[in-house]
């Protein structure tokens, strides 16, 4: 593990703020309120899940944070400069360039910043080894399984060692076995490099397993209902999935979600 990909983990109180979403709303075409009055503080090292039914504005929130669209009202404040340049993103589809090899795909964020491959070979190879794909540098995406493609996508998101990684339902299209494996690996990865993650999901179980905070949202109009704290300590492994602690947190989260949906209906 190089120093480059490592951030020291600090206790909660000392963690610097990464970003502050303050009373943000997004209205499309002047009449569709995709998101209303959302506030969220993201601290370094957080793993935050946005959980809610389809159409509650999860992707919209992520796109606003990524700077792909601008809030109608409210503000998104990045602490300590850098901001949007210092971001990694993983979409629901692997979103790889089919004409490029795995290594070239992971090189992309650097390439767009004017770095040649030899300059960043170390980072690219390390990111791929972190996701367990060291042997596939020269493979083309079509030669990989769905789960492996997703790993490449994750490697690409973290190769620049960004302050914040945004993930929009990255594992939704995968089978459950692969999803569980990637969940565990993602947590190990996060512990390893100490990044900050905002994770969008439909799944109560996935969000409880991964997060330290779950933002429960409701639809029509999209809004935040509740923030659920998952107090279970990291590291969490497969054993955690069958623990009573996990079940209890799932129950609380599930109730919050149903309350949110009931309110919307």
């Amino acid at each position, binding site marked *: 593990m190089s120093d480059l990909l490592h951030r020291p983990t600090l206790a909660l109180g000392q963690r610097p703020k990464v970003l502050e979403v303050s009373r943000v709303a997004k209205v499309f075409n002047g009449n569709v309120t995709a998101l209303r009055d959302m506030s969220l503080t993201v601290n370094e090292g957080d793993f935050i899940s946005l959980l809610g039914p389809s159409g509650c504005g999860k992707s919209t929130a992520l*796109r606003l944070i*990524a*700077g*792909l669209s601008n809030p109608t009202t409210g503000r998104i404040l990045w602490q300590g400069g850098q901001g*949007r*340049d210092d*971001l990694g*993103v993983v*979409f629901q*589809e692997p*979103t790889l*360039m*089919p*004409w*490029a090899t795995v290594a070239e795909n992971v090189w*992309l*964020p650097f*390439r*767009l*910043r004017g770095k040649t491959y030899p300059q960043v070979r170390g980072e690219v190879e390390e990111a791929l080894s972190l996701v367990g794909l060291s042997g596939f540098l020269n493979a*083309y*995406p*079509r030669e990989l399984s769905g789960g492996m493609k997703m790993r490449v996508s994750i490697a690409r998101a973290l190769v620049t060692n960004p302050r914040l990684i945004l993930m929009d339902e990255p594992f939704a299209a995968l089978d459950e076995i692969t999803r569980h494996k990637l969940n565990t690996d993602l947590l190990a990865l996060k512990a390893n490099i100490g990044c900050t993650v905002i994770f969008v999901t439909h799944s109560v179980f996935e969000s409880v397993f991964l997060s330290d905070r779950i933002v429960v949202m409701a639809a029509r109009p999209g809004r935040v209902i509740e923030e659920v704290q998952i107090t279970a300590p990291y590291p969490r492994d497969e054993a955690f999935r069958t623990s009573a602690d996990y079940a209890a947190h799932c129950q609380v989260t599930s109730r919050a979600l149903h309350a949110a949906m009931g309110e919307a209906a």
Partner: protein
Amino acid sequence: MTMADTPLTRAEAEVDAEEARRARAARTESVAKWVLPALVFVIMVVLWDRLVVWNDIPHYILPGPGLVMQTLVKDWPILFEALLVTLQITLMALAVAVIGGVGLAILFNQSRFAEMSFYPYAVILQVTPVVSIAPLIFIYVDNRTVGLLLCAWIVAFFPILANTTLGLNSTDHNLRDLFRIYGATRWQRLRFLQLPSALPYFLGGLRIAGGLSLIGAIVAEYVAGTGGIGSGLAFRILEAGYRLNIPRMFAALLLIAASGVVIFAGLSFLSHMLLRKWHESAIKRET
């Protein structure tokens, strides 16, 4: 034990039989793909030959296949020279069509206003039959080669323009977002995202344009009409027609058709080589 085993074995045997059948079918198909057209070809040639012989058709009406081949060999110096002229125009027109088509596609893609202003005229140029423009071109353009080239280009550039434009606009929207997040410049987006995405579309257009530039070259030669040294296959056909040299007409026709096939095959091969590593069209699946 036996109760549990038997159905399983039978199922396996069934799958194996099916697999074997599929493998056999695939093998048959790969052979038939070549044998059947060859067989049709042989039958047609024999039929043609018999038709001529049995009906005593004179060679100035319909020459037999043997005579056509003889003429091809006998007139080879004239026909080969003409072939080279036609091929030269065709390939030059194709090259200019690629440059013009891709260039315009990139221009249109980069500037909406350029597209709005000029795309309709590209369409008009395409839908106007080249035979009707060609005489005018040969009035205004003194140089015969340039005139021929222009005609062939008008026919050939549009599929490249249309396909490349479509390809440049068919990038994955998530990849586009990703490029935006990483602060890609316009040039980077074009170079690393749009051009590779457009490649399969461009190659599809290129294959069509290859055939069209041959057609364009031939049509332009018909219209240009002037003979002598440096005239192409189309002129040789016209000339032979005036002299009722029907066998030579057939021989020239044979050469044109063969050129078309070679151009198409060459471009298909090029396309396969460029895409075989990553594109779905170049991948052989089991089923």
